[in-house]
């Protein structure tokens, strides 16, 4: 397991000075600044309901997404802003969704937990812990059934591994994998906690990747704070899953720096020291430092990126603020799909 990680790690490092990597760093800094802006807007009351940010976990989404290609489909839970942004969703429309505006990716009807942007490969944003694993398994089956070589990526938290949907989806995926009919990459975002309950307190077996092997699905652990490691594993695994149609599971070991949700201020379940200690392994700093060492990226370069990111996030807030509320008839729009039975197209007839 550790061996595989090293190999791919160095393979990616060789290419570390490719311009792509500075773009990825810029993207991660932007995601961080975007999330900070959402927390501020929540406190101001501009964002309502519930808000879960990805601060500390950026290397996971940004590392996986680089291995994907057009047509691949992504499913995730309610901690979904970074998933959308890393896939290329318009930050203005993501922020507008959080503000509940008509210009939001879900027309303001979903909010923070329900981003949906098929054009960029995002099939939600799911609000019930673990439920989306079943959807992702079915989507992967459909991709193969349709003769496509696309893969499905399904992100979920460590806490999601305790609900029935997880086990039911995993077993089905494992079985369908036997026939090469389930091209899915499960990604455990193991940030150490399900809300206030640590992995040790919620999972009888704390080796999470091992739990997945019970369903005949191979898996491995990766340092989720090191984007080179994540990307290295992702490149190899996504390629393999695309070829074989067999599911695979990546356990990305990460940490969330913010509270579980914006209302989680006291965080009585962990100490400030623990959080501080993890902040030393900030995924953005890790990438930045490596690019500095290997490619001579300077502090000024990073400062320029950061200024851009802050401004971009501020623009998204401005766009959201200035957008109009959803039109009143949106209330009834799409409760039932209006299209009726779909005509059979020419190529479906064959």
């Amino acid at each position, binding site marked *: 397991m550790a061996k595989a990680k090293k190999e791919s790690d160095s393979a990616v490092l060789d290419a570390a000075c490719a311009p792509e990597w500075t773009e990825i760093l810029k993207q991660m800094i932007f995601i961080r600044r975007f999330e900070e802006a959402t927390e501020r807007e929540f406190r101001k009351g501009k964002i309502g*309901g519930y808000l879960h940010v990805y601060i500390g976990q950026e290397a996971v989404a940004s590392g996986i997404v680089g291995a994907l290609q057009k047509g691949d489909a992504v499913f995730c839970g309610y901690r979904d802003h970074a998933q959308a942004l890393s896939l290329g969703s318009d930050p203005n429309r993501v922020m507008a969704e959080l503000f509940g505006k008509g210009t939001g990716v879900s027309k303001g009807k979903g909010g923070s937990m*329900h981003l949906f942007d098929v054009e960029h490969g995002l099939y939600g944003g799911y*609000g019930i812990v673990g439920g989306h694993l079943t959807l992702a398994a079915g989507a992967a089956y459909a991709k193969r059934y349709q003769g496509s070589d696309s893969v499905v990526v399904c992100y979920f938290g460590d806490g999601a591994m*305790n609900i*029935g949907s997880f086990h039911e989806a995993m077993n089905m995926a494992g079985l369908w994998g036997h026939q090469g009919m389930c091209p899915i990459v499960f990604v455990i975002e193991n940030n150490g906690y399900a809300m206030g*309950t640590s992995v040790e307190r*919620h999972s009888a077996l704390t080796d999470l990747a091992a739990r997945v092997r019970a369903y005949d699905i191979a898996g491995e652990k990766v340092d989720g704070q090191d984007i080179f490691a994540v990307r290295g594993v992702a490149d190899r695994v996504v390629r393999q899953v695309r070829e074989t149609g067999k599911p695979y599971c990546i356990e990305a070991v990460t940490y969330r720096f913010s509270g579980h949700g914006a209302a989680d201020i006291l965080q*009585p*379940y962990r100490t400030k020291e623990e959080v501080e200690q993890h902040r030393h392994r900030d995924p953005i700093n890790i990438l930045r430092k490596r690019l500095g060492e290997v490619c001579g990226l300077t502090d000024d370069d990073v400062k320029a990126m950061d200024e851009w990111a802050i401004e971009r996030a501020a623009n998204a807030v401005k766009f959201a603020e200035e957008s109009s509320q959803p039109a009143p008839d949106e209330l009834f729009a799409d409760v039932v799909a209006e299209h009726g039975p779909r005509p059979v197209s020419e190529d479906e007839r064959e």
Partner: protein
Amino acid sequence: MPETTYIDAITQAMSEEMARDERVFLIGEDVGAYGGAFKTSYGLLDKFGAERVIDTPISEIAIIGAASGAALMGMRPIAEMQFLDFITCGYDILVNFAAMNSYLFGRACPIVVRGPAGGGTHGGPYHSINPEAMFLNRPGLKIVAPGTAYDAKGLLKAAIRDDNPVLYIEHKYLYRRIKENLPDDDYIVPIGKANVRRRGKDLTIITWGAMLYVADDAADELAKDNVSTEIIDLRSIVPFDEDAILESVAKTNRVIILHEAPLTGGAGAEFAARIAEKAFDYLDAPIKRIAALDVPTPYSPPLEAAALPDKTRVLQAARELLAY
């Protein structure tokens, strides 16, 4: 005694019942170290220890199922759903086992399943449910939905002491928005008894939960036109206080049923049918139902407000009834 909020009334009821009866324990997600997503169980871990305030993995069916199994052994568990929306993940064991066990096997299953429900807090489509209708025709299960701090405490105590499974629906909009002085002494609010919240003679509004306050506002407005409105706070949905409903209808001859869940197939349909069957001769006008529109609860605050019932819609219905 200082005034007690609705949420503190719930905490107090759990705490007092746990102190009174060792068989009572609390089980749910983040009810211990975290103190509950809304801090409903804040302090209980310190008071009662981890054996009686049990943090579980995210496993709604295991929470309700384990509570039911423990109840079979003589315990009286309180099972918390972090949001009542997630009860869908535990639906099977609640409706198939807990609700029917007494009938099938003569062994009671005294559990309380409780948690936050309701809209108005911009929780969006998966965090705003009013779930009563999903459970209405599952005989064996009781359903209560307090709308005041007094009832929140008294009904929870009654639910914990009841020998049957009780679904206790707390409205999260009310958690910290309402408070009142509660008696120092132990009291319960009997399950199945409505409260006549306001006496009137021209019109009856039957409602519960957070809609009490919409009914109050409407009644205040109607009073300006010398219309006297009776408000029946049902409090219990199953069993419901049929006598209180019929008595009021017999007096006012006009009735509005107001609830926050969507209209079609909502609990109001059952009450309307009962009134039509048993008090038809007393009615001077058709029965009116005011409920959420038949749409999922959208996140967007203005759309959410438009979906949920409000004073304007109640007043319009009232005026139509009075002019009928």
